[in-house]
């Protein structure tokens, strides 16, 4: 089981690097799909059965398809590569590396300094992460946020339709 974790974690990190370093948008999109699949594996390792499948279905199956549609329809394969402003690159990279160092330092302080590194994982009940308890909670205790997300999706759909209309020349 540990081997799966190391493989999925390494794949997620390497493909994440591929997303931010790829020259072509389609390569970055494929790398991001790989990140979602690796994260689906990591969710399954955390006993989250339904959410692992949801992650792959919704993110890799719907959102990235939308991304790829927009990339391929808008740029039509003649995507010019991003020019990189050479004067800004050292500042960008150093700020990025600084941010990574800060995050990892905070994490190390929280884990090692406070003694949380060796805390054993804890799964209270055997059906943790199963679909039926999750569905029961979603439709009873968390019904109101669920209905609100339905409203959010409705607003998003209306917004996309409005934004996609052909602009009259007066707009």
């Amino acid at each position: 089981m540990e081997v799966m974790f190391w493989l999925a974690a390494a794949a997620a990190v390497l493909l994440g690097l591929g997303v931010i370093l790829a020259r072509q948008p389609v390569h970055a999109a494929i790398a991001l799909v790989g990140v979602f699949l690796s994260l689906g594996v990591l969710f399954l390792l955390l006993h989250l059965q339904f959410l692992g499948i949801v992650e792959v279905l919704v993110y890799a199956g719907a959102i990235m398809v939308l991304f790829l549609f927009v990339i391929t329809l808008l740029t039509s394969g003649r995507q010019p590569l991003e020019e990189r402003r050479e004067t800004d690159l050292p500042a960008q990279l150093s700020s990025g590396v600084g941010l990574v160092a800060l995050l990892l330092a905070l994490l190390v302080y929280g884990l090692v300094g406070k003694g949380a590194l060796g805390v054993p994982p804890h799964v209270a009940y055997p059906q943790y992460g199963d679909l039926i308890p999750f569905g029961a909670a979603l439709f009873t205790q968390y019904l109101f946020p669920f209905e609100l997300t339905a409203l959010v999706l409705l607003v998003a759909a209306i917004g996309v339709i409005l934004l996609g209309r052909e602009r009259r020349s007066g707009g």
Partner: protein
Amino acid sequence: MRIPTSYFLVVSAILFALGTVGVLVRRNPLLMFMSVELMWNAVNLTLAAFARQFSGMGGQVFIFLVVTVAAAEVAIGLAIIVSIFRHREIVDVDQISTMKG
């Protein structure tokens, strides 16, 4: 079952940092958007790790809601990018500086 929570937190922190660097370094709006997606997924992994640690149903529902809201936001964001692209092809978000103060 035997993988400590801190391992997942480290992976999540690295992915979040990669996403942030991607947003800062990239200048194509679609690629910036993809880096923001990477950040969301890092946060989802943190939520999932802590949900297992504390066996909370709220953590799982939170992940579900984050995925839904991220999907809605991607739809609207891509619609905005498409409507900007209609006028001219954008490879550098610095070209869209009409609102610059």
